[in-house]
């Protein structure tokens, strides 16, 4: 069966702004429906509906407040200095927002700043991250043979994950 590829930006948005639970099942369902002939517009509508807008807007506002507080000069009581530098506020807001999203996805708040756990390594989380990375790479790959290789690698990783999760009685 020929696998078709949904819009990359939509896939990326779903990965980083989609729901925390059932994200993989949702992404798989969207991929399956898209492969069965759903349009790009349908895919986009589904992704837009799946994004937790309110939650991320709250996160963005919090990041902006943090950025504003951080850029306040020491003599902020003077009215002209109260606003801070807009460019600095914007940069800090973006950085803090990205870090917050990253924390949300890795579920290891004190350990992670860049998506890598610094203190302890969880094999399941590592494998899940590897699958996600492979999946994104596969979507960006244009060579059909390499895409197939990526697919097979993902399936193999998944089957290992399923096998490992079965505990002997």
């Amino acid at each position, binding site marked *: 069966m020929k696998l078709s590829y949904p819009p990359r930006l939509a896939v990326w948005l779903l990965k980083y702004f989609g729901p925390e639970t059932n994200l993989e099942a949702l992404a798989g369902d969207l991929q399956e429906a898209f492969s069965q002939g759903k349009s790009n517009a349908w895919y986009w*509508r589904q992704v837009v509906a799946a994004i937790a807008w309110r939650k991320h807007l709250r996160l963005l506002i919090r990041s902006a407040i943090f950025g504003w507080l951080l850029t306040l000069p020491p003599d902020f009581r003077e009215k002209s200095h109260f606003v801070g530098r807009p460019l600095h506020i914007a940069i800090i807001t973006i950085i803090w927002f990205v870090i917050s999203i990253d924390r949300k996805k890795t579920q290891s708040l004190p350990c992670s700043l860049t998506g890598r756990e610094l203190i302890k390594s969880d094999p399941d989380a590592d494998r899940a991250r590897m699958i996600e990375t492979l999946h994104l790479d596969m979507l960006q790959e244009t060579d059909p043979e390499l895409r197939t290789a990526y697919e097979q690698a993902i399936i193999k990783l998944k089957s290992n994950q399923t096998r490992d999760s079965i505990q002997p009685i």
Partner: protein
Amino acid sequence: MPKQGHLGDFELMVMLAVMRLRDNAYGIPISRIIEQESCREVALGSVYAALERLEARGYVTSHLGKPTAERGGRAKRYFRITPSGQGMVRETQQALIRLWRGLPELEGVHS
């Protein structure tokens, strides 16, 4: 004293779709059944959000299937209704029937 926790209309639709599908209840067929019966496009994200709430309340359980190439190596999550979920569907149905009764403007209307 009134009981709390009756299902919302979308949650009820999702539960009924899961019951209909039996062993094949995952996102796509669930949303397809609701789309067919309600004649509106359903967001898969909303279906999963409803299923997450229902699972948290103990009305459905879920398990992962095998990953397939068609899904980009991702596994399906299958849902199944629990006995307490079935009981809640029945209670919601009874509550709706009681509300329905005695409304002459709705009697004999079948679309």
